[in-house]
């Protein structure tokens, strides 16, 4: 009896308990600590907006703006690259080839992104591969300076880091589309472009938004790529949090983190309310259970 009870409930309850204690609780604690005060090096419970004022008044607001813009750019670029790839994999190649290509895309994602960022600094540097190739081919006479330690470099770092993972939700929602809808559109006389715009694209929007949110949130909180590829003083939100932590100002770090979490939560909420998640998750979660 006890063993049956354990097999039935304890096993599924374990991960839920883990996620509540080590993910939800710490995140809730972050929000609480953002209202606390700092006395010397000690953090005391209180209810003050000092940390938020420090954040919205200081130069960190510029960091917020820059992070916002860079993340939007990286997300849009990532979508423009990932969508055709996902579309091609979902409709134009065999499932077997699609799975192989998807697996190939996961490998670089799994290799630590800090290592990849180090490699990019060499590839984009004055004496790096890209400048060497450009000069050897005669396209430029001097090495391009703006390739590294610039907005362009950070953008390259962000897109190459997050784009591969955007392909998965896009592919998932595209391959879940009922082909008969596309055939119906074709039979009713719509040209391919119109079929895509009126049928395929709207049906794949849940995947588009899932990919966009994943990339946007990841870029927004990025802390290593700006430091390695943006050069001295280049900061994004992740760096703001890290630098506040370095000086042991935990309430300020928590306040910035809460702003990031708030942005993320509202995006997720919009996604949840705007789309029937079942249409998307139906692929992986058996319906009717």
């Amino acid at each position: 009896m006890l063993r049956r009870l354990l097999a039935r409930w304890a096993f599924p309850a374990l991960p839920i308990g883990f996620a509540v204690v080590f993910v939800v609780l710490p995140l809730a604690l972050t929000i609480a600590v953002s209202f606390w005060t700092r006395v010397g090096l000690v953090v005391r419970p209180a209810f003050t907006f000092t940390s938020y004022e420090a954040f919205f008044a200081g130069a960190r607001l510029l960091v917020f703006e820059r992070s916002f813009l860079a993340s939007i750019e990286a997300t849009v670029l990532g979508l423009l690259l990932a969508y055709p790839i996902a579309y091609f994999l979902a409709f134009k190649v065999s499932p077997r080839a699609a799975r192989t290509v998807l697996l190939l895309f996961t490998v670089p994602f799994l290799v630590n992104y800090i290592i990849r960022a180090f490699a990019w600094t060499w590839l984009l540097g004055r004496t790096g591969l890209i400048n060497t190739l450009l000069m050897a081919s005669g396209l430029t006479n001097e090495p391009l300076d703006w390739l590294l330690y610039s907005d362009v470099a950070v953008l390259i770092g962000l897109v190459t880091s997050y784009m591969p993972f955007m392909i998965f939700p896009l592919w998932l929602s595209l391959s879940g589309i009922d082909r008969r809808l596309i055939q119906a559109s074709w039979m009713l006389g719509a040209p391919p472009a119109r079929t895509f715009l009126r049928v395929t694209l709207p049906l794949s929007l849940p995947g588009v938004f899932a990919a966009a949110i994943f990339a946007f949130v990841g870029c927004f909180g990025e802390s290593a790529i700006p430091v390695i590829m943006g050069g001295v003083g280049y900061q994004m939100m992740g760096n703001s949090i890290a630098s506040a932590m370095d000086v042991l100002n935990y309430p300020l770090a928590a306040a910035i983190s809460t702003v990031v979490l708030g942005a993320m939560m509202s995006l997720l909420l919009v996604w949840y309310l705007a789309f029937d998640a079942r249409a998307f998750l139906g692929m992986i979660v058996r319906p009717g259970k």
Partner: protein
Amino acid sequence: MPRRRSATWFLSWCGLIAVLFVIYLPLVPPILFSVTPAEPGGVLTLQWYLALWRDPVLVCAIGTSLEVGIVVAAAATILGLGAAMAIRSLRVPRLVLALMLLPLFVPGVSMGLATALFFRLAGFEISLAKIAIVQTAWALPFATLIVVTAMSTFDPAYLEAAYVSGAGRWRAFVDVELPLIRSGISGAATFSLILSFNETVRTAVVQGPLNTVQTYIWSTYKQVGLSPALYALMSLLILLTVALVAAFVVGGARTSPAASGVNPRGR
């Protein structure tokens, strides 16, 4: 729809391969630099790889990484399996899945900060356990997705058959379902191990006195910059990651975790 092998189709493949090339490009330079000799004109060398073993801090970090990696692979897989069962058997599958996938949508620094605050206020100071917990939380969404995908192709009728034959819930799971979702289990374990080896940001915030290989690389970079020995270490990690994925692909799991069709003949 008939597949047309048109010019567009070939061009699309070329574009895809070009994108893959760019994505894989950063894996090459560390390996090149790690075999470059100290004095110009020399032949390829492995001296930097040998130098790694003379650094006691690094040897200790490698030990920690291995210990944590094994714990994370085991814990994330078991928890992922439990989560997949919860998604199947509880009345609120979307809510459970959302809870499990939450860490995917939280930036690494924010998650690290949150866990660090939590451990501090709870007075929890065991370095190894802190690293293992924060990495398990990071690997769990991936492990859950992989097991859920494998499970979604499993026909529950097999379980019914086991119950009819007199098996209990536990016996039916161990003897019937587990062998059929084996590729999902091994996929979850492999990916969790790889994610653990390659995690920096979350670990760096909570680590305490212990170092993992990744936090060693990050702190060495911040203190003294990059060196050939550091490139050698990065190359080892890149090769290890690629080898683990290859071992997973070759090792019986012919279907990828992205969409596995579990073959009942696999028994």
